[in-house]
């Protein structure tokens, strides 16, 4: 049974040039204890998708259709009050991109914990503080920083405060948007280890959004590869790493140099724009066929993995 199921999610933006679809007919699920790395370039819709999971979509963006089912409850249908009170932080937490700026500069760190705690039914400030101290220990920060203001902390420390804060109610699912981007390698490693530990100890499910392929692979049990707002491929990390199916995944994996392996096989993916009519990858795809230009492929299931490409359709050559 899935913890979270996203069904046919479509999100649009109103722009001066008309409606633009940021996420198109996206479906995937995450089970307890899984870590899904969402890989995508800028404009792939990964951040918009993440925001939709915690109802953070605001105009000019709009959720046109779809369901987000957490333990069977459609998060998009329940009242805002119920969502904020019973779900956000409690069942699902969100660590936004550039979250280092999302702490309130006029509040000490302890006040962030107290605000979040009291607004979700914890009355005893002492209890909140006790929890905060334990959580800071988990992310290896001294409890003295509870009395600090955000500007007194480094970027990596702020990031870890936010991860600690997101754990206040031990949610079953945490969504992290680029949590280690722009941090130095020691801090990056440190935070990745914390995420792994969390996942192993508490079986917390994690949606980890990144544009760094190596990091995505390092952490994930499953990969969700997005392009132009659509799912390109979704499945077991090891399997995709060894045997990617979608031409985008194949090109992407062979465009990233590694510390080991044959460099002569590394080649960039052709640059190009997103196709808004058929398959979004059409203009850059080495296997593009005429059908791909104006027709949207279905999602095909190949050995348990999902892939959205005509190469795998019934009418494949």
């Amino acid at each position, binding site marked *: 049974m899935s913890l979270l199921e996203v069904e046919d999610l479509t999100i649009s933006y109103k722009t001066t040039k008309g409606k633009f679809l940021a996420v198109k007919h996206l479906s995937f699920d995450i089970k307890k204890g899984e870590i899904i790395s969402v890989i995508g370039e*800028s404009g792939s819709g990964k951040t918009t998708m993440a925001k939709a999971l915690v109802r953070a979509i605001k105009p000019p963006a709009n959720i046109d259709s779809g369901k987000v089912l957490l333990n069977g409850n459609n998060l998009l249908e329940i009242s805002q009050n119920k969502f904020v009170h019973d779900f956000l932080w409690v069942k699902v937490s969100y660590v936004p991109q550039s979250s280092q700026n999302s702490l309130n500069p006029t509040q000490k760190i302890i006040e962030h914990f107290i605000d979040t705690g009291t607004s979700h039914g914890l009355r005893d400030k002492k209890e909140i503080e006790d929890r905060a101290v334990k959580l800071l220990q988990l992310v290896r920060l001294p409890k003295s920083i509870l009395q600090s203001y955000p500007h007194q902390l*480094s970027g990596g420390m702020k990031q870890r405060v936010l991860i600690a804060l997101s754990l206040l109610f031990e949610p079953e699912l945490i969504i992290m948007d680029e949590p280690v981007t722009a941090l130095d390698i020691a801090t990056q490693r440190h935070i990745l280890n914390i995420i792994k530990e969390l996942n192993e100890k508490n079986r917390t499910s994690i949606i980890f959004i990144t544009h760094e392929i190596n990091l995505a692979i*390092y952490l994930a049990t499953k990969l969700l590869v997005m392009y132009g707002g659509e799912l390109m491929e979704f499945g077991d990390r090891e399997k995709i790493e060894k045997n990617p199916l979608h031409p985008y995944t194949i090109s*992407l994996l062979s465009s990233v*140099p590694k510390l080991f392996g044959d460099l002569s096989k590394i080649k960039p993916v052709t640059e190009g724009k997103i196709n808004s009519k058929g398959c979004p990858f059409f203009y850059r795809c080495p296997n593009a066929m005429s059908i791909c230009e104006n027709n949207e492929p279905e999602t095909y299931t190949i050995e348990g993995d999902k892939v959205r490409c005509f190469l795998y359709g019934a009418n494949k050559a």
Partner: protein
Amino acid sequence: MELIRLEKSTVVFENEGRKVYGLKDVNLRINEGESILVLGESGAGKTTFGRVIVGLQKLTKGKYFYRGKDYRKNMKLLRKEVQYVYQDPISALNQSKTIRDSILPSIKKWRKVRGEKLEEELDNLLKSVEIEPELKNRYPYQLSGGQAQRINIARALSTNPRVLVADEPVTMLDASIRVGIVDLLTSLKNDRGLNLIMITHDLALARYVNYRLGGMRSIVIYGGRIVEEGNFSEILSDPLHPYTKFLVESSEDLEGVGSQEILKKMVYQETNDLPLKGCPFAPRCPFVRDACLNSFPEVAENPHRVFCYIYS
């Protein structure tokens, strides 16, 4: 022929009353046609290093000679011959100008081209970075990151430079197109005999640059200091300085291999306060000894150059 020589080059920044070394006692010689890799992380001093080379950053102490002449008396030549490619390709361009208007003045000034030839020169320059000349009428916000970085490279080339300092030129680009930009930079180096100074934190990417250009000399920077120097493949296969070991092991571990000799021992510490005395890596180093806290070690050759008391 020597092109660039740094002698005890030092840059000191003041941050809230605290002194920070952007660069400290850096000695380095780069010969004409030679390309190097500068490895290090944000805050290590690599950008300060790059800015010193192009003459954008004054030295607090020490010397910088370009073609044997003190940089301060050589600014005109530096402006022409040493060009910078920035990390953020969009914000590096003038937002209120079309690509054409951004690059033409520089072609006019440095290439001494006039009249009808000017447009032709611009078109050829854009073609050389694989950009269709029609894009010249666009504004920066109308470009993809990859296109913008190619245009930055074209702008840098417009002065007919000898040296390109590329400071994390692909870090902000989508992963799928990064090696395309590296391919462009390395072919430009080969075709024009440029000195490419490639600054990066990404060892896997550095490995690819080294593969394209072959046998590159590399320096590893930490806390404004050069801590290790040698052939890139030697540094990768046999890192000597504990910091370099840490860098290599971190990248290895991402790929699920490696010994983790240092990774297991290294205590995680915030890097906000680097010591002004001694080795900047001392507070995080698992092999720290008293000497490290007091003075920076002399160079040892073992077999390549390293600055660490373990070897001296």
